């Protein structure tokens, strides 16, 4: 029997829940507390729990480093791209009303906020994971008396 069986079983149960809660915070952020930043941190926490239980190498298989590099820049580009898109539609930078100019319920604002928050989510998740991978991949050489 492998050691830490309980931890592994519980982690397997919790990780999807944490990720689901992260997405809830992201997409429910318009109505309750939360938004892109918080959701990104929670999603990163799900991956970090996986890394803590199954090792950073396993986590790197699940969320490869290339995803992090791409995702981090994609988030910023998505945010900036939303602003540029509003330029092309004839508005000011990040003026979302041009997405749906004749809507009575500010649908353009909703779409704009959705895209922008998605960009924040991408960047924050990947930045947090980048920091965790960078620190977590290093094994210190410490003698026992230091502990």
């Amino acid at each position, binding site marked *: 029997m*492998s050691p*830490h069986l309980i931890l592994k079983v519980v982690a397997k149960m919790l990780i999807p829940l944490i990720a689901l809660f992260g997405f809830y915070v992201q997409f429910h952020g318009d109505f309750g507390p939360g938004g892109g930043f918080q959701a990104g941190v929670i999603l990163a926490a799900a991956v*970090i729990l996986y890394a803590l239980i199954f090792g950073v190498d396993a986590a790197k298989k699940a969320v490869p480093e290339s995803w992090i590099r791409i995702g981090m820049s994609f988030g910023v580009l998505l945010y900036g791209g939303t602003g540029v898109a509003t330029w092309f539609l004839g508005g000011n930078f990040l003026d979302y009303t041009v997405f749906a100019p004749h809507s009575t319920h500010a649908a353009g604002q909703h779409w704009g906020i959705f895209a922008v928050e998605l960009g924040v989510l991408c960047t924050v998740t990947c930045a947090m994971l980048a920091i965790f991978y960078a620190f*977590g991949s290093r094994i*210190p*050489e410490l003698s026992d008396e230091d502990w």
Partner: protein
Amino acid sequence: MAYFLEMLNLGAALFMLIAMALMLGRLLSGPTLYDRILAVNAFGTKTVLFLCVFSFVIGRPDGIDIAILYSLMNFIATIAVLKFFRYRALDISLERAHIDKATVKTGRAKRGSRK
């Protein structure tokens, strides 16, 4: 009746605060590190309960979202601290912990001998 419920929740919140203060005492005085980890974990549980009760006191159910988040984050933090304290590294898989720890130790021994 509403007044009774309000007082009930307020009292519960107050007692949770007292329990948190007691945990803080153990956290500050804990002789071993495990006592401190235990105190932090129990403190987190009590904070979750405090937030649940308190969001009823102030009549905003948003506090419960934060309580959910806390119960998750508290678990992650506890596991992280324990893992650090036991294996002294982040990137070891618990599945192969016994093997990896052996390799780490032999690696250390080799380094020491080289010096």
